[in-house]
């Protein structure tokens, strides 16, 4: 069973790349679940819940595989979840909000052992301080189309790298998967 590749329940190429860099053998199985916070839902719990739901959804659909990883990344500013922008105008608004301030990037992941039904979930938070961004900078970045499928409207490893003045905590967590913590959990659960 242990030789069966781990299943990453995510369509994100960034997460797949991080898994590869960490030397984890895996295959991907995107899981499509509704991503909508409950009213008054605590942000970390929302991310943890989605991570678990993604792992469960993938494990229910896939015939092969024992360990399933689900993950969800959110950006939190002033206690509120900043979602993915709905359009370019929204992306501009979000980046203006983040400009010159510190926000939190929280990635929750869940490792589900299908043979026992037990999932082990964890969340990691990184503080990110943005430069003060000019309108030109924001518009230029939004024009690339990059912000649209990203939590908080930016990707730290792409064209927004120079927006970031300072980060405190895990870098890979901001990209989409805290690999140190994930490796720990994979070892603890016997997945690797």
């Amino acid at each position: 069973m242990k030789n069966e590749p781990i299943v990453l329940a995510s369509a994100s190429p960034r997460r797949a790349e991080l898994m590869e860099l960490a030397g984890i053998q895996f295959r991907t199985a995107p899981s499509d679940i509704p991503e909508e916070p409950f009213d008054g839902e605590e942000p970390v719990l929302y991310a943890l819940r989605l991570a678990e739901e993604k792992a469960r959804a993938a494990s229910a659909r896939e015939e092969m595989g024992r360990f399933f990883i689900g993950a969800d990344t959110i950006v939190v500013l002033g206690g509120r979840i900043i979602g993915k922008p709905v359009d370019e105008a929204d992306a501009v608004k979000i980046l203006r909000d983040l400009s010159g301030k510190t926000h939190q990037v929280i990635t929750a992941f869940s490792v589900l052992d299908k043979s026992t039904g037990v999932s082990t979930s964890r969340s990691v938070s990184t503080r990110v301080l943005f430069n003060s961004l000019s309108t030109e900078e924001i518009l230029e970045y939004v024009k690339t189309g990059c912000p649209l499928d990203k939590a908080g409207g930016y990707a730290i490893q792409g064209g927004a790298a120079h927006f970031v003045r300072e980060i405190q905590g895990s870098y890979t967590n901001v990209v989409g998967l805290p690999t140190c913590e994930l490796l720990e959990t994979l070892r603890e659960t016997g997945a690797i």
Partner: protein
Amino acid sequence: MQQIAERLSIVNSRIRAACEKSGRETSSVRLIAVSKLHPAEVVSSAFAAGQRLFGENYVQELSDKAYKLTLPVEWHFIGHLQSNKVKYLPGIVTLIHTVDRLSVAREIDHQWRDKAETPCNVLVQVNVSGEPTKSGTTTIEALELVREISTLPFVKVRGLMTMPPFYDDPEGARPFFRELRLLAERIKAEAITGVDMSELSMGMSGDFEVAIQEGATLVRVGTAIFGER
């Protein structure tokens, strides 16, 4: 009344099966037979069939039944609790599932200090879905409320309780049960003095199996045991 014994036995075997399916000990889940709006006689019948733990939603009804029945049953209060009714509960209940605001916790502290020797065990009720019609604190405010309650010497937080929105398919409730468990794990990690998160009260007649799979330790079952009211 034979019917109650049969139904109880069916519910208990469903609980066992759900525990097995999720790799849990059967002893880790307790069944609360919810006898609200049923006469005291049905409690006696269920007692005769081996049931010892009962839940009531209304203070008046609970105290009437508790004084009428001399059986050694354990009572939990599981209904919406108003501060002015708290004074009737010491000496009757072993657990209150529905503390959702500090004012009620303070009144429990006050009443138990006066009338009981040991603190009152409570669960904090969380409105996971955020439905405006439901009681309960939000998941955002839950940790702070638990912290505040932990300063009251005669109230002990033992875990969390929730009522998910109603779904025809019990799977619909799963995300809400899961969230309650995640919230409990989070609060537990804070290691607040005097607080433990050993109890998760979630799941009723229509969805208790799913709740058990998600970690319920107390399931509140009425209709499946006592029938429709």
